[in-house]
């Protein structure tokens, strides 16, 4: 007899659980969709979002701590020192390598590098992914000799 009851309870359970599941999906049919219309509506990124870097050139002292902290060596810095004067000639971050890990921002003694809210920096060329944060400067011959450009 138990196999007969098992047969009928099987059928009953099949139908009842199907109906329960269908009632749940029906409820969501009439609720608001959670889709964000991405390319038309930009998402709100929170304050601590780790996007493309924000670099404050005036504060930078050219200490190379951020470049040394980077696990993949994607920061390349060019510095010209003349006494107390520091000129940042180059501050390139290669976003093909950068993994947005935020290890560069913490050790900076001058608090001049942060991670910002932007993330849409896709490019059609490899060169386009290397972003230059330092403003272009023209150097004298003497300055060019003293320039130190390195990734570490």
């Amino acid at each position, binding site marked *: 007899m138990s196999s007969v009851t098992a047969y009928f309870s099987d059928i009953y359970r099949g139908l009842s659980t199907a109906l329960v599941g269908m009632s749940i999906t*029906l409820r969501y049919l009439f609720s608001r969709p959670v889709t964000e219309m991405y390319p038309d509506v930009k998402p709100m990124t929170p304050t601590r979002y780790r996007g493309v870097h924000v670099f404050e050139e005036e504060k930078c002292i050219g200490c190379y701590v951020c470049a040394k902290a980077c696990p993949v060596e994607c920061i390349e810095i060019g510095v010209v020192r003349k006494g107390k004067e520091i000129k940042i000639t180059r501050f390139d971050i290669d976003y093909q390598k950068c993994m947005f890990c935020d290890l560069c921002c913490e050790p900076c003694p001058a608090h001049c590098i942060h991670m910002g809210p932007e993330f849409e920096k896709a490019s059609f060329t490899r060169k386009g992914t290397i972003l230059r944060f330092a403003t272009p400067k023209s150097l004298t011959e003497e300055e060019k000799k003293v320039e130190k450009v390195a990734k570490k």
Partner: protein
Amino acid sequence: MNELALNLPVWIDQVNAHTGLRISVPAHLIPILAMFLCASIVAAAMGLSAAVLVWAERKLAGHFQCRLGPVYVGGKFGWLQSIADGIKLFLKEDLIPSDADRPLFRIAPYPVVLGVLLAFIAFPISEKLMVADLNVGIFFILAVLTVEVFGVILAGWASNNKWALIGAMRAVAQMVSYEIPMGLAILPVIMEAQSLSLKSIVNAQSGGILQWYVFQSPVFIGISFLIFFIAALASLKRAPFDLPEAESELTAGFHTEYSGMRFSFFFMAEYAGMILVSGLAALLYLGGWHGIFQGQAGPEWFLLKTSFLVFVMIWIRWTLPRLRIDQVVYLGWKVLTPFVLVCVVGQSFLAYK
């Protein structure tokens, strides 16, 4: 269609009178022209309704899942999406595998589509709108729907692909084992109506909602309605019985080697089949084109009932997981067939008291 054949000469004369053209069709060709016109209208309606149904399924699927469906092609609701997909399928390269059986490969989509198209012949939308009022209507429809099985086997065999063949055999096992409950589930209705013609079955349900067969004999015909619906879902290879299609768990289904227009035939046959089967269920069990209160009748009621049943099919698909093939066959033979036989016997006692 007979009425169309009768009216055609009158219409042609009217067109001649209004526009000044001199179309003259010889008398023996009028029926052929009428047939041709009917066939094209049916095919066009089937294609268009399949396109609309594809869009509706995608939109509904999206909303069941808390997201939007197509929203870009054709304005905010994306209603041109299925037409865009159709154009894409049309323009695709026609690939035939090198070792495949070429004639069979080419022929295979046609029986599948033919099965569904032919069934639309005996399919009345309202009192006056039908192609042909066959007096063995429902029998003809069921017989013609089995032609699909040929197409599936041919597709699986001709693909020269082990996995397509296994998928086709599983699909055929499923389709064939659910034809019996589907055929038997119709018997209680036929016993009540004492006729196989769809028009007379529907006319026997006139007179308000309580006269629909589902409510006239709620136990036996109600259960056979449920069985008919489930058997139809399995016959169409729709979820939760879509193991042949979504075989992409491990292998790909019987239509793996098909692309472009050939694939769109399979696709269209499935969606047109959905409409056909929902329409049949509405005609047989839910009163066809009769309304809720006595005296209301019209094609809009029929369309309403059919759309409701199609909605239920889509709803079921997006809720339930898939059954394994042995569970599918178990359900068909060991659950649905005994229950439908009980319904037939029970209804026969009620009908011939």
